[in-house]
């Protein structure tokens, strides 16, 4: 007990850890090492000469660095730039659609009572409970009939829909956090609901909108199953589906350096966006999980 008392102030200076400071640093570094190893070795593999990336057993540190795998990626089927363009168009489309619809609906839910509010709210709850994987079969049939398969716009509409429960929830909470008096004084000053939203309310919910936008972008950029099912022709592939072209089960010998170059290209936007907008990402994550 006395021993404890002596240690306490020292620990307090470095906040309270479950371990003594030195052990804490060692444990955290070890976990970081485990977490980073796959990422770093993948990056190194993509930066080897392609022949060296095929070697077995692998060398852990490359003999020669080379960007040849990345250059080869531009020659895969329609070329990596084509797939990046597809994915960017899809992701920004999803982002814009999701932000627009969820800001409008979030404002409507937070501040108005209207007929059908309960039905809409119930549908959203149902969407949270029923996994989207369960309705891919009918979506595929409907999309085939409407000629929306192999159509990025069609896929974008699906992504927007499935971002809505989370996004509307975040926006509704953002609007509810604004004092009613702000909106009322805008109305008394002659603002219509539409101009109140645009000029007074929206600027106040921008942090929420950034979280919504970020998650919409990530979802569209990374989604695999729906894109795999609905985009059957190579020119319409997204970046994650491009990776399936690089897989050996379909095309004989796998070019491992090429595959890891593809993996790195897919990861870069996610890592950059996360590092720059970390705060909004974490906030969105908290809000999203409280919902469910």
């Amino acid at each position, binding site marked *: 007990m006395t021993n404890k008392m002596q240690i306490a102030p020292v620990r307090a200076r470095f906040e309270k850890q479950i371990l003594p400071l030195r052990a804490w640093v060692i444990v955290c570094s070890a976990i970081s090492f485990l977490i980073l190893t796959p*990422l770093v070795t993948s990056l190194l593999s993509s930066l080897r000469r392609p022949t060296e990336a095929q070697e077995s057993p692998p060398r852990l540190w490359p003999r020669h660095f080379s960007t040849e795998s990345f250059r080869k990626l531009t020659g895969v089927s329609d070329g990596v730039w084509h797939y990046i363009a597809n994915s960017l168009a899809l992701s920004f489309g999803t982002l814009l659609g999701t932000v627009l619809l969820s800001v409008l609906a979030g404002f409507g839910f937070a501040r108005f009572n209207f007929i059908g509010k309960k039905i809409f709210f119930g549908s959203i709850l149902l969407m949270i409970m029923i996994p989207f994987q369960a309705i891919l079969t009918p979506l595929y049939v409907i999309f085939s009939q409407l000629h929306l398969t192999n159509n990025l716009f069609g896929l974008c509409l699906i992504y927007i829909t499935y971002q809505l429960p989370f996004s509307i929830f975040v926006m509704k909470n953002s609007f509810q956090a604004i004092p009613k008096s702000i909106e009322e004084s805008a109305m008394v000053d002659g603002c219509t609901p539409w101009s109140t939203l645009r000029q007074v309310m929206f600027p106040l919910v921008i942090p929420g909108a950034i979280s919504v936008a970020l998650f919409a972008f990530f979802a569209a950029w990374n989604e695999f199953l729906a894109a795999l099912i609905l985009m059957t022709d190579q020119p319409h592939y997204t970046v994650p589906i491009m990776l399936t072209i690089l897989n050996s089960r379909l095309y004989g010998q796998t070019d491992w350096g090429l595959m890891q170059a593809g993996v790195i290209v897919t990861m870069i936007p*996610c890592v950059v966006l996360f590092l720059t907008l970390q705060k909004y990402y974490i906030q969105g*994550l908290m809000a999203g999980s409280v919902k469910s």
Partner: protein
Amino acid sequence: MKDTSEQKLSHPNFLRRRAITGAVFTVPAFLFVLVFFLIPLVKVVIMSFQDYPLLGEIKWIGLSNYREAFADTELWRTVKVTLLYTVIVTPLLFSFALFMALLIKGTSKLTKFFRTIFFLPVVIGFGSASYLWYWFTDKMVGPMPEILRLLHLGTQSEPWIGSMPLALFVVIALVVWKFSSFQMILLMAAIQGIPSEVLEAAELDGATGIRQLRSVTLPLIKRTISLVLILSVAGSLLAFDQFYIVTGGGPDGSTITTVFDIYRQSFLQFRLGYGAALSVLAALALMLVSLVQSRVLRSSDDE
């Protein structure tokens, strides 16, 4: 400028107009939900009673799809492997997540630095993470078998994804790597939310270390714990990407999960009606999990 006054805000005409305005704001989003969720939801139920080939005649066949599903030994195999995977992954994810959450609950610069590193696997796509691990654990060129060999920790001669417990192990390692930090952040936020006076009081009473964790910290974040566990169960029951990419369902179809089976029936064999019946069953199972979830969360609120 219109003539305005305070009274205007409570006038009946104004309230009616507000009701219409509110509906107008939400209608666009509702249309999306209607067309891309509610209609397909009705359609999946209808399709499950039909023989629905991609081309050719669609026939009503009553409960045949469901009867076939329950009689299909292949289906029970997919359910079994999905459940086995869920039962293994859930406690593993939670233990790592809790341990990491306790490590990085502080607010210092160094803590934040580690937290950012820990969190990196969460933000990359599951598809690309799966392709990364497919390579990372490859017996010939992958670093992981090589590192284990250098450490004299294993000399498995067969390809890892070619034999059964190992194939599942590879996917589980990938998922633990990818998702532990997701749960970590939620648990960390809950732990940070515990008032420091409570912990100090516990310490004065002699509850420190593991004891404090077990009898003070964990009970106080019970709600978050059940949330995290349920998210993990639901996510594991829907596993697809990781198995499709890393094991391809092999060896011998022993890692085909439920969603993988739906994919296979609907989009490889184009038995869309049967795929729809499997989807309905999967949706019902997941709704059951959701119901249990809301029960559990409500009961932990009551206390």
